[in-house]
């Protein structure tokens, strides 16, 4: 089974797209899309950047550090935005969390 159905995104979360949600560049329409059951979402530029960093390894905190450095922007503001966007995706059922590795 995938991770828990209902996840709450916070700084230590290590989010990843579940196998039924696929981030892809649509060559025909020249936009990034998330393909999901019966849905096609059009993430904006920054959502795409965040999602490309969601590999199940990086935490939300790591992702925010990276974006704060890249855009020379206040980390706290970025963290808030990243959590909001990911929680929105999680609420739609298109985000899961990497499970703790079993030793």
């Amino acid at each position, binding site marked *: 089974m995938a991770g828990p159905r209902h996840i709450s995104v916070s700084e230590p979360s290590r989010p990843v797209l579940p*196998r039924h949600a696929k981030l892809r560049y649509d060559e025909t329409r020249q936009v990034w*899309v998330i393909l999901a059951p019966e849905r096609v979402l*059009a993430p*904006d530029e*920054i959502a795409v950047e965040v999602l490309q960093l969601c590999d199940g390894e990086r935490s939300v905190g790591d992702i925010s550090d990276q974006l704060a450095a890249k*855009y020379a922007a206040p980390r706290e503001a970025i963290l808030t935005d990243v959590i909001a966007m990911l929680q929105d995706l999680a609420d739609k059922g298109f985000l899961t969390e990497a499970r703790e590795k079993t030793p």
Partner: protein
Amino acid sequence: MSDLLGNPTIPPDASDSLAVLEKQRSTAETFGIPLAVLLEITHRCPLQCPYCSNPVELDRAGKELTTEEWKKVLSELAEIGVLQVHFSGGEPTARKDLVELVKHASDAGLYTNLITSAVLLTREKLSDLADAGLCHVQISFQGTEQGLSDRVAGYKGAHGKKLEVAKWTRELDLPLTVNAVMHRQNLHQLPDIIQMAVDLDADRLEVANVQYYGWALKNRAALMPTVAQLDECTRIVEEARERLKGTLAIDYVVPDYYALRPKKCMGGWGRQFFNISPAGKVLPCHAAESITGLEFESVRSNHSIAWIWQNSDAFNRYRGTGWMKEPCKSCEFREIDFGGCRCQAFALTGDAANTDPACALSPLHETIFKQAEREAEGETSRFLYRNFAGGTLESE
């Protein structure tokens, strides 16, 4: 997220960083290639549901596209910008090459969905489909208990098998949608159907009231719900949506007979949708072949699918608003609902260019609404089962 760059690339709703692409396209890119295409790869099906959405004239096995032809279609769809394909039927698992087709679609970058009755699946076959890249499984249910479910399906043992396959689906980590087609004879089970979907760990539930064309129109007297049943159904769905937020998403389709405004069928003819029939016809809707006098192009013709979508007579016939007659022609809602459903207009009035009688502005609305109410209160409960022989009446 627009705060970060202050400049989202696509601004359908400035506050939504995850907009639904269909919504943007419906205004911005009217006749662009659809995002999703329905592939009815066969009309063969072990079930005999009396509301089947397939045409009454079914394509026989010998007319079906070959494996190589379907592969060519899949490659072409990916190339012209289709993102998702729904493998449907008939029963798509009745085709021995389904795993091969799903693999081909996945390799071409398409997101694949299987719409199935589940009764022909084994755990091994489902696992092979998952390995081939299948992204999502939709299983139809006819009710919540064996007696009624198997009777509606006209197939003994169907219900138990569906429950089993739904369980395998989740075990294989595939997302599951439960499709529940609702009508007068099973609407009382709706609360249990919702609970069944939760218990099966489904992500989505489609509560789809029967739409009355083709087989369902033949069975209307046995299927049409009463207004009271429908009101209760709506109340139950709304309550469940609220209660199950974040656990189960519920899509809801009402029967349009009891509406005042018609549905924007297919998002408007030739605007956002096409499907391909078992024999390779490219259709504006899965019931379109019921409209006599329309010629549909085939993927076996010399035309590309993109050409057929853009230029064929069948797609252009009812596109936009130019074809409309009164009361549609001067109606303020003409670009909101495009006059409803062309197939229903044809089935009930004999002319697909007439206003869909589901619309209160149709001169036939009153008559048809009254007839539906009469049928809903009537005694008829025997089904005409769907099959290649033109239907078989349920024994008494």
